[in-house]
């Protein structure tokens, strides 16, 4: 029993050292995918058909193929292309962490763009008209009227996507990255204690996601004006006599 606990303790310590790698992949691809998705969303409502076609094709390709194949294609596939292999890009493409981030950025941006696109369509037309009617245009309208509503509508689905991304980072282990899952497999290879190690790894993912969920839920609460209002003192809703 004592030996068992010691083993789990030492495995956990090893796995925890891999947490920064997992978080790095998540942070880089999360930020990049969100930025890219914002761009794709803008393209999806463009007036001319070409940008819209580009967004639809992007979504079709990256949402329609398995992420693990995208990772393999970028990491193993691009190594076969002479001008990448022998060009300055090779410093990036030989790095498995970079390749994972690139694949996840492309894939998740397709999903997030769809979330944003749906949220944009759900922003009440009247709020936008009220903005236009008082003379707002372009960027101001987007920043002051559309974005605040869009973010509130998109946030629950967006949070879900981020949680999914956390789990997807484990695919990096298939191309030699020593993230949580990668280290877990390494430990199992010489200890053969599959269940213990995977349980410890799963516990770490649970912890990360619990933290993320709490963070995103706090953000959601903060943006919810109905709840935020209770902290400010507001007189009760009473109709004054007219």
């Amino acid at each position, binding site marked *: 029993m004592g030996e068992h606990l010691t083993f789990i303790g030492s495995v956990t310590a090893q796995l925890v050292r891999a947490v920064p790698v997992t978080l790095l992949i998540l942070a880089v691809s999360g930020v990049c995918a969100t930025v890219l998705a914002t761009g794709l969303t803008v393209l999806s409502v463009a007036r001319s058909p070409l940008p819209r076609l580009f967004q639809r094709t992007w979504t079709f390709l990256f949402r329609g193929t398995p992420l693990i194949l995208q990772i393999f294609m970028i990491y193993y596939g691009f190594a076969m292309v002479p001008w990448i292999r022998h060009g300055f890009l090779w410093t990036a493409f030989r790095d498995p962490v970079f390749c994972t981030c690139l694949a996840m950025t492309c894939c998740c941006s397709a999903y997030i763009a769809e979330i944003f696109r749906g949220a944009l369509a759900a922003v009440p037309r009247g709020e936008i*008209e009220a903005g236009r009617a008082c003379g707002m245009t372009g960027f101001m309208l987007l920043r002051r009227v559309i974005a605040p509503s869009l973010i509130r509508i998109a946030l629950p689905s967006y949070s879900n996507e981020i949680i999914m991304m956390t789990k997807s980072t484990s695919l990096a282990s298939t191309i030699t990255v020593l993230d949580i899952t990668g280290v877990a497999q390494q430990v199992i290879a010489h200890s053969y204690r599959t269940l213990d190690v995977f349980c410890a790894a799963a516990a770490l993912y649970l912890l990360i996601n619990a933290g993320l969920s709490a963070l995103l839920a706090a953000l959601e609460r903060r943006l919810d004006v*109905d709840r935020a209002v209770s902290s400010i003192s507001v007189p009760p809703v009473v109709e004054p006599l007219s």
Partner: protein
Amino acid sequence: MTPPSPTVLTATNIRKSFGDREVLAGVSLEAREGEVISILGGSGSGKSTFLRCLNLLEVPDEGQIAIGDVQAPLARDRHGRLVVSDGRVAARLRTQTAMVFQGFNLWPHLTVLQNVMEAPLRVHRRDRDEVLATARTLLERVGMAGFHAAYPKRLSGGQQQRVAIARALATNPKLVLFDEPTSALDPERVREVLALMRSLAEEGRTMIVVTHEMAFARDVSSRVVHLMNGRVESSGPPAHMFGPDASPAFRAFLSPAAL
């Protein structure tokens, strides 16, 4: 005799079709400073569409619009359709006006005070202290002084509409457009909003009001315009329109209300 007050709005021969349904078949309207014009008509008569053409929320298929000294930037594209040719001028035209909507359309993420301050602060870039003072005065005026920090969702329909009216007045527009401002309210709230609109009319605001409130049209407006099938069927001062010499079509339109 006093000289006629300056013209605030000139809309000439406005036409608009949705698909093959012609909603406006050439409507013209001129509004002078201080006039309160009620636009009446059955549903589908094009009255809301006409109002929305005035600030270019809808782009008309034909016609010209000028508000104050700003001419609506309408030009034909290569297909011969009328389009807004300069977004900045269109925005400048809109800054001369304000609109009060049937569905209030307050911005839900801003407080009552922020809603009122938004346009003068961001669009007109006026001085913050000045804007704040104006907003306070206006909210007091519409009976919402105690609700600065409240969010729109927390308010009743009548309260939201009164805030929306304060928001509309915050930029001191040359022309206020009301698009069925009481149609989404229950009867009790209708009264408080109409009372407020009446007081605006009395202080000399230039207003164009699309409404079903016959009493408001009769008692408050300086001119009544009856739209039917996308045309001005008849128009005139309320004394005439609600008198015995009104057009038969308008009398027929009124009669169900009289019963």
